[in-house]
């Protein structure tokens, strides 16, 4: 089953891309650092190409606060190893239904598509998760995600390794991509 997200406004995409901050290092004392070291040991097959760098890290993680049943998680993932890292699944502390979503060109417009095969973070590069772009989709939320609340997220890699981090929920007016399932039912995402 393939699900598709269509951007309500193409403008939103442009703005989001222009705001890409993948090269800006975070000074946040976020959970990323400690989580990254966990990932390093779990990721097994990969090896850090530079000493002192976590093998997988995320900077500026956050989740959109919502009182609806869906939300997105964002941040900039970094692969500091010299091998590709294949992300195959995501899980979260707020729901059992979590998906990896990417943005692709389809019939002349950008749409959000579930990445059924996951995605690969190439060695030494960053993978940006942002509103209007690739993101982690959290669905069927049983309770609101309140602003300031911490959400735990875990990526699972093809080799069985995992990477867990904490993302704080923030008030955010954007990230309203229309969620269009191939079966046709359409609901706005938070």
């Amino acid at each position, binding site marked *: 089953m393939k699900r598709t997200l269509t951007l309500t406004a193409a403008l939103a995409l442009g*703005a989001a891309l222009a*705001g890409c*901050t993948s090269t*800006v290092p975070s*000074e*946040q*004392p976020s959970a990323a650092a400690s989580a990254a070291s966990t990932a390093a040991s779990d990721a097994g097959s990969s090896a850090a190409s530079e000493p002192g760098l976590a093998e997988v890290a995320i900077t*500026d993680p*956050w989740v959109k*606060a919502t009182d609806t049943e869906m939300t997105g998680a964002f941040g900039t993932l970094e692969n500091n190893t010299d091998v590709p890292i294949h992300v195959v699944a995501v899980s979260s502390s707020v729901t059992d239904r979590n998906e990896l979503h990417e943005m692709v060109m389809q019939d002349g417009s950008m749409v959000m598509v579930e990445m059924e095969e996951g995605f690969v973070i190439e060695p030494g590069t960053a993978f940006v998760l942002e509103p209007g772009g690739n993101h982690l989709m959290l669905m069927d939320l049983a309770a609101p995600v*309140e*602003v*300031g*609340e911490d959400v735990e997220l875990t990526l699972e890699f093809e080799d069985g390794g995992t990477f867990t981090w904490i993302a*704080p929920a*923030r*008030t*955010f*007016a*954007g990230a309203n991509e229309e969620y269009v399932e191939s079966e046709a039912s359409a609901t706005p995402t938070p």
Partner: protein
Amino acid sequence: MDQPTRSAGPAPAGPAPAAEPRRTDQPPIPRGVRRRDVLVGGGGAALGALATWAGLRADGTPTDEGAASSDTSAPATAADYRGNLTEPWQGEHQAGIVTAPQGFLTLTAYDLADHVDALRLERLLRIWTDGISRLAAGRPGLTDTEPELAAHPARLTVTVGLGPGAFERTGLEARRPAWLAQLPPYSIDALEDAWSGGDLAVQVCGEDPSTVAHAARYLAKEAADLATVRWAQHGFRNAAGQVPEAMTFRNQFGQLDGSSNLQGEEGEHVWITDPDAPAWLRGGTTMVVRRIHMNLDKWDELDRPGREVIVGRRLGDGAPLTGGDEFTAPDLEAVNELGFPAIDAAAHIRRARTDDPTQRILRRPYSYEAAPSVIPSDTGQIFIAFQADLEHQFLPVQARLAELDLLNQWTTPIGSAVFAVPRGVREGEFLAQDLFA
């Protein structure tokens, strides 16, 4: 010893009776250098000629023009580019208090939403701390949708205060400092709800109004689920580099304003050091905000001599009517040729005096001009005062000025609020965190 000029109003203030030799015998610029040195905590070595604070980076080192921009597209090599200047946001105290006043202000008061309890208030303060840490460094906020607007911090500072409601409405009433309440009513007041009170205050100051506007709005957006804007006040002083650094601020009456107040150099009168004070307040201060309408149209009816009598100073150089210069102490005993006091019994300079140096306050005022009115004027001052002890330093002189001050005929307080300003944060801390321990 300095005699403070205290004012509830657009204190003409000036200078007061201060008779500091170092001020009187030196030209303005050197004096400013000394002041800024203290204010930014920078090394004296970094201070040169006209550079003073504007030539300092956050770490107190001289600016290396062309290096520190956070936006590579910025004209960082231009000799006059100063948008990359930052003020330190971490430390014993919050920024924006003894920081040399920047040109522009957006001061926002918030009402907490009904569902905000102590946990949610804590979350909001965590979020704001994170936002401040980024914006003050010239980085976009975490969820910033206009990240480019954060790229030129231009000495951005953000100062957060807690009003009485932050305690009363969140179950923290037992931890509210006893002094944290609205000011007592004064006969001169014509307070409007629209400009008074507030559970939280966020003072954003900077040298660039575009950056200030973005920062203030970003912080408001991040708070939107937890707090609504009660009032917001925009203020201005001289833009950076447009007047000599050391020049005393002139209010819209044309008066030199506040040069005898603390300028940050006497921290013991600004910072709360009482060992009995709660941890979140030690290193913090008390903040009074008054919106004071200045009736420019009525002021226009006064000729220059009359204006000078009201304050007791010459408008041009701020010297007392009894002679000297801006920093000469007035001779309050002097009489004129008719035998009347040379400085009127109700002149502001006389009424604002206190002989108790421990009653000096730190004033950090901004002018406002509310759009779209020009004539008649909707102009005044956002009076902002910081002092360690509200009851000892602020209330007595405010009461005396309210009782009698010629200037009161042209000024009207239309807004009033009091906030507790938590201490500064160190790496990994968030504002007021001891309050939630």
